[in-house]
């Protein structure tokens, strides 16, 4: 297993190089640059700015320089305020990850609960309620859900707030829970977790139903085991395998952030920062964010594969 994990991590290196190269090429193919604007800057000012940021070098030179710095862990500076890209990503990710982890937990708990509940009460009224919520959650785009939530619960009822993230925005605040504002956390988490919860619920329900009809379940009941033991020990673990398949990518998506939700709630996360950087042609930030996402997705997939082996003893990695 260990050698498998190490091999997977080493495979990351050519993947990241490919991602960096493709992003670099695409980035410079797109019209407009960081200093392009309606009120055109005089040519000599653009030249001075390009000189300042090494953008007047030939592209191949900029590319090699970027790779060289990357090997030293230097992701460069954002054109917006000359801020360190790795710090921006780290600070943004700190916030996005909080939102993502909370949303993931809510989605997992609600999705699993709803799915199991529905499966156990198949075709009952409660099953239909569960399916109803799951369908609505899956069908509504999350920004529509967010708008509803904001108008009803924040503007009209005033229960929650909409601006920014209520958890610690900087590491210094992380250890000071009194600085946190839970009122700001509720709505974004609900908005982000609804679709994954719905999806997890559907998959769990289907998987549970399939497992409940298996022969070994009937055998376990015939042996006289309590219903809870039958479902919990023999049913659940097997039902979870397909659910795990979807939870890996879901976790990756949640943790990398939803640009739309971060915009709607003005959350200083990395999702918003990335899309913003593309719009502004902030080259270093675009490269840094893309590489960051590549790593996150690769790690998430690796974690899922490892969990697979843990849950399903039939799966063995190695040779």
């Amino acid at each position, binding site marked *: 297993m260990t050698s498998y994990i190490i091999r997977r991590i080493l495979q990351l290196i050519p993947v990241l190089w490919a991602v960096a190269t493709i992003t670099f090429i695409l980035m410079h193919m797109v019209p*407009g640059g960081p200093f*392009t604007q309606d009120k*055109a800057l005089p040519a000599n*000012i653009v030249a001075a700015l390009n000189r300042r940021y090494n953008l007047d070098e030939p592209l191949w030179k900029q590319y090699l320089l970027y790779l060289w710095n990357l090997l030293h862990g230097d992701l460069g500076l954002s054109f917006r*305020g000359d*801020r360190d890209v790795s710090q921006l990503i780290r600070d943004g990710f700190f916030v996005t990850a909080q939102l993502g982890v909370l949303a993931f937990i809510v989605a997992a708990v609600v999705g699993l609960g709803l799915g199991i509940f529905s499966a156990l009460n198949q075709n009952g009224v409660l099953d239909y309620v569960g399916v109803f919520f799951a369908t609505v959650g899956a069908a509504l785009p999350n920004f529509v859900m967010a708008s509803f939530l904001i108008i009803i619960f924040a503007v009209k009822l005033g229960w929650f707030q909409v*601006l920014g993230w209520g958890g610690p925005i900087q590491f210094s605040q992380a250890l000071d829970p009194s600085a946190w504002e839970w009122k700001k956390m509720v709505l974004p988490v609900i908005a982000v977790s609804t679709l994954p919860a719905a999806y997890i619920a559907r998959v769990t329900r289907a998987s549970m139903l399939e497992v409940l009809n298996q022969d070994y379940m009937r055998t376990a009941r015939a042996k006289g085991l309590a219903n809870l033991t039958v479902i919990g020990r023999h049913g659940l673990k097997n039902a979870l395998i397909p659910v795990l398949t979807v939870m890996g990518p879901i976790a990756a998506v949640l943790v990398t952030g939803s640009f739309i939700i971060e915009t709607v709630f003005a959350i200083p996360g990395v999702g918003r*920062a990335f899309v913003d950087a593309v719009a502004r042609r902030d080259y270093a930030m675009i490269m840094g964010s893309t590489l960051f996402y590549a790593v996150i997705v690769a790690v998430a997939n690796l974690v899922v594969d490892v969990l697979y082996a843990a849950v399903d003893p039939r799966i063995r990695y190695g040779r």
Partner: protein
Amino acid sequence: MGEKKLGFLVLTALTAILTFAVVACGGGEKKTSVETPSAGGAAPPEQQVLVAQSAEPEFFDPHRSNFEQDIAVERALFRGLYQLELDSNDNVVAMPAMAAGEPQVSGNVYTIKLKDGLTWSDGKPLTAGDFEYSLKRECSPDVAGPYQYVLGAGMLDLAGCDAYFNGEGTADDVGVKAIDDTTLEMTLKAPKPTFTTIMSLWATFPVRQDIVEKFGDKWTDPANIVVNGPYTLTEFVAKDHVTLAPNPNWALEPKPLIQKLTVKFIDDQEVAFRAFQTGELDMTNIPATEIPTIQNDPNLKSQYLQIGSLRIWSIEMQLNNEVLKNEKVRLALSRAIDRESLVKVVYNDAYLPATYWLVKGIPGFQGNGPFENIIGFDEAAAKQALADAGYPNGQGFPKLTITVTDNPVRKAEGEFLQQAWKQILNIDTEIQAVDAKTRSSTFNSREFELFPGGWQNDYPDPENSLIGLFDTGGGNNKYDCSDADIDAKLSAAGAETDNTKRIQDLKDAETLIVTRLCGAAPIWQGAFLYLVDPKVGGVRANGAIDASMPGNWCPECWFIKAQ
């Protein structure tokens, strides 16, 4: 099964009705307990907390700033030799700020005396040497300031500034010198009537040499920054907010009452609107699309503030295009646009329909009077003009492209124009919706045909609206307007030292530009749209100077009223 399905449908229907009812009933209400504030009285210091909204700035370094949101904050942190104020008639005038009075002018040499006893926020004296350093810094090629050109040719034209910037001279050659601690001498290439106006711009703000040299790019961090304005920077969280607090060494009046001024960075104005409704913002920009909602809610309506901005919007037309080079074609296109209707339908009447280029709020404003009957809406005249151009009823007219930004409002405007031109002139157009940078790139490369776009003044003077935009080869003249008469008027204005004659030359230039539609057919003048909590006092808005936040030409004027 049938019963269960019915139950399902009923549940869905109930949810939908309930949601609709909650959302539709009434308007958004502010979640703060605000009583009617008594006029003039200020709340005690612990309540002087203000949360404003602005788009996210790039820099707090005034010599590197390019955007309104940066400048808005810098106006609170720094102040130049002069500052723009409103006189008793609400006209914009440049008044001495750090300067003691008007400059002494002798030929091209301007001598300015500083007020006595000026200090920075850390107590060190603010001297003429600081201004000498700062102006030279704005001209420095290493700083690469995007607004260096206000000190260069065609604007202030400070001797040696362009040469230094272009690598043809040194900092020592720049024509600014501190004669002593309180006397600054500036040498221009020619006398400039708008001297004090330009010397109020952020590009001329003073910065501290030792702080800049010690901390480099980090000199604007809260721990390092030293300022001379009413506020200083106490906290900055990227992508989230910046917090300002009063500078105890602020030299001028009034002294700021707000003890904690937080500016939240929200680019999406729809989001900002919601945050205002929940009470999380005290003042905010709002999108024109929300105007109907606001007008229908008496509470919000009383907090709504609309002030004219110095932005003119037009249909810019590439004069190298085979059909657009014909003046009659441009006339047809312009006369087919019902500007009042456009502003009402697309922008909810937030803006002013315009057939003029020099905006309301600057000297030389002529309004729609001289131009309405020449280029304004007239269906019959539009059809006639197109026929005269050789395309009766649109026959043989090629399909032109309208390039717009890919957002709902600008696309709606594009569709309005497309429909108008189809219905009245029977010509087909295609809308190309792209992101902001691509659109700007299309404009700057001159590869556009029809381009809704315009101009926003950097300072309230007509020279800023015309020079560089409509002179042959002008830096912003991307529509290739090249007209000898216009060139003559603009260079006459540039050389004229008598202010009245200068303004007249510029007005004459405007008349030629508009009546000949040399590159642009104006359609509306813009406005800033704000919501301001009634507990906020001291907001005296003026679109000639305001940017980002209402009344932010004087952030030291804001206060929270006693309640």
